[in-house]
Each structure stands twice: as structure tokens, then as C-alpha cells.
């Protein structure tokens, strides 16, 4: 029943956004609501022993609970960060009060659609949910309504819609072989996974290709990634964090569900090769662009492509360790990248510039955010003791122990080059003096809290995966291993 609370709260908050006029109060209420959601999601994940089926429509197993938890974590951090961000933008006259209320309305709609994706059983409804995430976030990408953000929003919605049409094509082909060859007249994942052995192997292979390309567009896999840097850099910053942190992951979730069916039907080698191929292409593309990118939010956007690539390679390597490591990396990347987008938002607001080579002396100008930005960049580059290092290492271990030497070496090479790129850009930001006339900035307590929560997640998981998360991810990996 907790799942209904998770749906009810954003709906209530949407009503609140319509009714309440004081933006700061609205923001606080919103953040409180998402804290409750996070509690429910954690409780659901913690108590889930058996897959939960409601009305034959919702189906929640460990994999769903894991994604739900990650989405809840990132959205609640974003809600917390939004309070000051929106209030300040409003005070600075970047948009009207009506528009600020619209922001909270769309924010809730967006997160509602993301909560919907991992808990429905019907793969057609998963598609509907993912399409809704695009529609709900399109206005948030084009929120500032200037030329650049409109361009980004248009590209975002068009490219993702095309991608997602191919995904629906794949879904229909899956349904065709299910109804014709296995006699399954439903699109429910449970039914299809149960009867997957009877599907036509040839058709399933073609259908999975459509699914991977289609949802892969939304997940930011290269070469279908072209919308991603634009949308991430132009979106309003708390939303950039949500796009990068969890939106990409919901699309990956959809691919994983089909991956299970395909693996049962044709064996894991086929999907594993495809995952590795797209993962390595993404890493290569991201690697090239990261070396030369100076725009701070675009830089983090390309870094998201890199990490989606790493996750994809992790799924490709597979095995219980590979799946475990990839899922852990999803969590780590969501947390770290959200922190970075928040920090970038504060820095850009302070300096009114987004070129990393012009922004100097961040730590002096913004002592708290600056330190968070620097630590976050070390973390995203894969420095110990942060969590990203740990999950990247696990993926590499899984790869080498499975004998995928070429793939693992390539992965290692890309990670090393990107490490160099990130440290190079970081040194530009870190050193140098802040402009003389710039006052030292202070952050509001709510924003600091958002940073601290995310930072704790990064550090704790880096030292030792907490028992709760460990068992959740292990169970989720077991769902993926189902044969």
C-alpha cells in the first residue's frame, strides 16, 4: 500500500502548487513531501521479501524497489535544493511568480511519471510512463524560455520521441511473438518472463535491438545521445540533476526488463555483446568531448554519457558480480552527479558565467559549495575513497575475472583518460584568485542539507556498502540473473 502513498504525495503537492502563493513555503512543503516519499520508498525496499503484486497491474520486486529508492533519493535532494534556487531566481526576476508555481507543478508531474515507470507490470504501460517523463520534463528543459533553452527543449522532445517510437515498435514485436508463438495474450512482464522460453528466438533478437536503440536514446547511449548535452545544460538546474541522476536510469530500467526476457529466450551472449558495444561507443564519444568541453553543465552532461556507458558495459559483462556492480554504479552516479549539478548551479549563479576556464577561485568565493564541487569532481573522476571508484573497480574485477580482457582494458583506458580530463578542468576552477569585487557567498541551510545528504551517501558507500543497500542490490541483481 506504500506505493499509493508514493503516488498520492506528488498529486497532493500539485494541488499545493496551485493553491499556495508563497514560493518559499511551497518549496519547503514540497521538500517535506519528498522526505516522506523517500521514507516510504526506503521502507518498501527494506521490507520487501516477496515480489508485491497489486491488482495484476503493479508489480514490485527488488529491481523495482531499488530504482524507486534511487528516484526518491534524488528527487528529494532536488526538492530540497529547489527551495532556495527558485526563491532566488524569483527574487532576481528571472521569471514570474506564476511561473515559479508552474515549476513546482511540473516538478511533481515529472517525478510522478518517474515513480510510475518501475512499479508497473505491463511493459506497454512502462512505455507510456517513459513517454510521460519526456512530456513532463520538456517544459522544465525549456523553462527559461530563451533561445538556447527552447532549442534544447525542441531537440529533446523530438529526438526522444523518435527513440521511444522505436521502443514501442520493439514492444509490439515482443507482443507479436508472445501472442503467436507462446500464446501469451498480455504485455505483463511476469507473464512474458514466465513463457519466454517459447518465444521465437529470431524475432526476439530483432525486437531487443529496437528496444535497445529506442530506450537507449532516452538513456543517453551514444550515438543516440545528441539531445542530452543540450537538455542537461539548458534545463533549470535542480531538474538537470534529476535528468542526469534518474531520468536516464528509468530508461535503463525498461531495457533491463526486456533484457531478462531476451536472456531467457536466446541466452545472455547476444544482449551482453550489444550492451558492451553501445557502452564502449558511449565511453569513446564522452571521452573525446570531455577533453575539450569548457561549459560546466555540458561537461557534466558528457560525463553522464560516460557513466551510462560504464553502467552499460557492466550489464554487458553480467554475472552476479557484473550486475551487482552496475546497479551499484547506478546508485553512485545518481548521487554524485546530482551533487555536481547542484554545485554547478550555485557556481554559475554566483559568477554569471559557465566557462570553466574563466571561473576562478571557487573555493574562496563560495567556501561550502566550492569544496563540494571539488570533492564531487574528484569523486566523479573515480578517486578513492568515494563510491564511484568502488563500483568502477567492481565492474573491472567482474570483467577481468570473466575473461573479458579486451573490453575491461578498453574500459580502464577510457576511465584513465577521462580522469585526466576531469582533473585538468578541475585545476582551472580550483586555482587562481576569485575576482576582487566578488563578495564571499553563503548558502542557505536547506541547500547545504541537500549537499550533505548526497555527500554522506557518496562517502559511506565508498567505504562499505550498507547492509540495507547491499541486500537490496543483491536481490535486484538476482532478478536480472533469472534464467
Amino acid at each position: 500500500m506504500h506505493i499509493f502513498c508514493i503516488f498520492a504525495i506528488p498529486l497532493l503537492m500539485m494541488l499545493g502548487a496551485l493553491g499556495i502563493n508563497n514560493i518559499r513555503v511551497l518549496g519547503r512543503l514540497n521538500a517535506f513531501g519528498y522526505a516522506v516519499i523517500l521514507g516510504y520508498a526506503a521502507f518498501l525496499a527494506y521490507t520487501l521479501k516477496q515480489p508485491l503484486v497489486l491488482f495484476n497491474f503493479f508489480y514490485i520486486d527488488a529491481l523495482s524497489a531499488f530504482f524507486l529508492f534511487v528516484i526518491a533519493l534524488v528527487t528529494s535532494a532536488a526538492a530540497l535544493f529547489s527551495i532556495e534556487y527558485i526563491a532566488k531566481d524569483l527574487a532576481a526576476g528571472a521569471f514570474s511568480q506564476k511561473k515559479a508555481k508552474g515549476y513546482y507543478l511540473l516538478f511533481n508531474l515529472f517525478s510522478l511519471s518517474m515513480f510510475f515507470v518501475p512499479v508497473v507490470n505491463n511493459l506497454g504501460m512502462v512505455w507510456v510512463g517513459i513517454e510521460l517523463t519526456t512530456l513532463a520534463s520538456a517544459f522544465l528543459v525549456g523553462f527559461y524560455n530563451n533561445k538556447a533553452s527552447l532549442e534544447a527543449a525542441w531537440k529533446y522532445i523530438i529526438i526522444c520521441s523518435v527513440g521511444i517510437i522505436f521502443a514501442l515498435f520493439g514492444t509490439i514485436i515482443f507482443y507479436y511473438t508472445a501472442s503467436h508463438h507462446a500464446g501469451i495474450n498480455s504485455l505483463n512482464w511476469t507473464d512474458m518472463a514466465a513463457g519466454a522460453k517459447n518465444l521465437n528466438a529470431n524475432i526476439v533478437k530483432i525486437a531487443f535491438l529496437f528496444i535497445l536503440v529506442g530506450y537507449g536514446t532516452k538513456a543517453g547511449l551514444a550515438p543516440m545521445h545528441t539531445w542530452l548535452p543540450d537538455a542537461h545544460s539548458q534545463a533549470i538546474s535542480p531538474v538537470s540533476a534529476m535528468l542526469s541522476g534518474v531520468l536516464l536510469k528509468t530508461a535503463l530500467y525498461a531495457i533491463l526488463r526486456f533484457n531478462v526476457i531476451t536472456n531467457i529466450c536466446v541466452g545472455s551472449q547476444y544482449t551482453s555483446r550489444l550492451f558492451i558495444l553501445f557502452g564502449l561507443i558511449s565511453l569513446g564519444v564522452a571521452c573525446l568531448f570531455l577533453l575539450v568541453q569548457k561549459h560546466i553543465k555540458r561537461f557534466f552532461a558528457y560525463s553522464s554519457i560516460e557513466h551510462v556507458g560504464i553502467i552499460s558495459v557492466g550489464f554487458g559483462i553480467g554475472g552476479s558480480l557484473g550486475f551487482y556492480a552496475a546497479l551499484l554504479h547506478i546508485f553512485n552516479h545518481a548521487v554524485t552527479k546530482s551533487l555536481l549539478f547542484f554545485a554547478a548551479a550555485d557556481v554559475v549563479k554566483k559568477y554569471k558565467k559557465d566557462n570553466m576556464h574563466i571561473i576562478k577561485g571557487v573555493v574562496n568565493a563560495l567556501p561550502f559549495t566550492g569544496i563540494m564541487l571539488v570533492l564531487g569532481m574528484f569523486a566523479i573522476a573515480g578517486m578513492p575513497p568515494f563510491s564511484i571508484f568502488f563500483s568502477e573497480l567492481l565492474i573491472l574485477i567482474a570483467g577481468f575475472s570473466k575473461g573479458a580482457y579486451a573490453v575491461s582494458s578498453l574500459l580502464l583506458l577510457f576511465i584513465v583518460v577521462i580522469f585526466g580530463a576531469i582533473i585538468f578542468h578541475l585545476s582551472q576552477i580550483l586555482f587562481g584568485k576569485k575576482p576582487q569585487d566578488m563578495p564571499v557567498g553563503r548558502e542557505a541551510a536547506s541547500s547545504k542539507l541537500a549537499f550533505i545528504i548526497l555527500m554522506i551517501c557518496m562517502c559511506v558507500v565508498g567505504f562499505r556498502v550498507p547492509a540495507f543497500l547491499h541486500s537490496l542490490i543483491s536481490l535486484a541483481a538476482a532478478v536480472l540473473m533469472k534464467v
Partner: protein
Amino acid sequence: MHTYIFLLGILVMTYFMMMVKRLPALINGFRWQSLFLFLLTLLLAKREADGALYVVAGLIFLLKVVLVPYFLLRIVKRIKVNENLGFFMNPQLSLLSGLLLTYLSYLFTFKVMLLADRMQSVSFALSLCVTLMGLFIMIFRMKAVVQIVGLLVMENGLFLTAVTMCGGMPFIVELSTFLDIFISVIILGVFVYRINTLFTHIDVNKLDSLRG
């Protein structure tokens, strides 16, 4: 027999849309294509005596034949933009590419997919090529409205697959996809208005400030 006529109608209308030079003609082409899709769905609904398919057919008629074309034509009229599509590839070459895409879909269906039923193979090849031609229209024309139409053509191809091969998807999915499509057309329409106000044109090839 009727099935083949309607399938042919859909294909011919798609070729027509590859050739046309002006926006209203393109939108009307889409309307005719949807009409053939509607007739085909109605025929199948009657043949299988399937109540849900009747509803789907009704929705196709209401949304794709009436509402969406009306909405798009209104946008074109309201923004008072030059009605030419803006070609990256001239109509003759586009038609040739369309024929090539048809042949490739045919090859893909009969050499790779290997469906047992001949009728289903034909309709699959057809819907695949309609989808691809929709994508082609999106890529090789300049105006933003054309991209919306291209998206809708792709979706028509998709519905064709669902209807002819699976007898429609589960009802709730079908319903929600229709709703989704309708919302997305409206949202895209809003963006076209905004782009037109801000840029004073709707040529998507000129939206190129974000790079690298």
C-alpha cells in the same frame, strides 16, 4: 482483398507525403493516411468481432483524422509562416529514397524476420517502411511542423503493425498511447508557437547555437 487496398492506400499516401511541397498538403496527406488506417482497423474489428478494436478505430478517426490535422492546420494558419516545407532533398530524390526504403523493409522482413504468415509479412514490411519514411520526412525537411507530422507518420506505421499483426495491443495500453500521442502533439504545438515568437521562424535547421 479490402485489406490489400487499404494497405496500398496507406503506402501511396506516404509516397505522396514524401513528394509534397507545402504544409497544408502534407497535413492533408497525413489525414488521408489516417483515414485508410481507420478503415483497415474497422475492417479487422468487423472480421474479428472485437469490441475493443471498434473503439480503437473510433479513436483513430477522432484523433488522427479530425482533431490532430485540424490542430496542425490551425497552427500553420496562425503563425503565418511561409508554407513551403524547405527541402534538404528534392521531391524526386525523396521519392526514390522512399522506394529504396520500401525495398529494404521488404528485404528485412523476408530475409531476416522470416514470419510464417504471408499476409503478416506484407503488413509488417509495409508498416516498417511507413515508419522509416516518417523518420525520413523528419530528417530531410526544415520546418518544425513537418517534424510533428513525421512523428505522427511514424506512429501510424506503428499502429499499423499493432493492428495487423497482433489485432491491437491490450486495450489499456492502446488507450494510454493514444492519450500520450495527443498530449505530445499539443506540447509540440506549444513549442512551435514559442519558437515562432522568439526566433520569428520555425526552421529547425537554423536552431544550431548549441554545439560541442
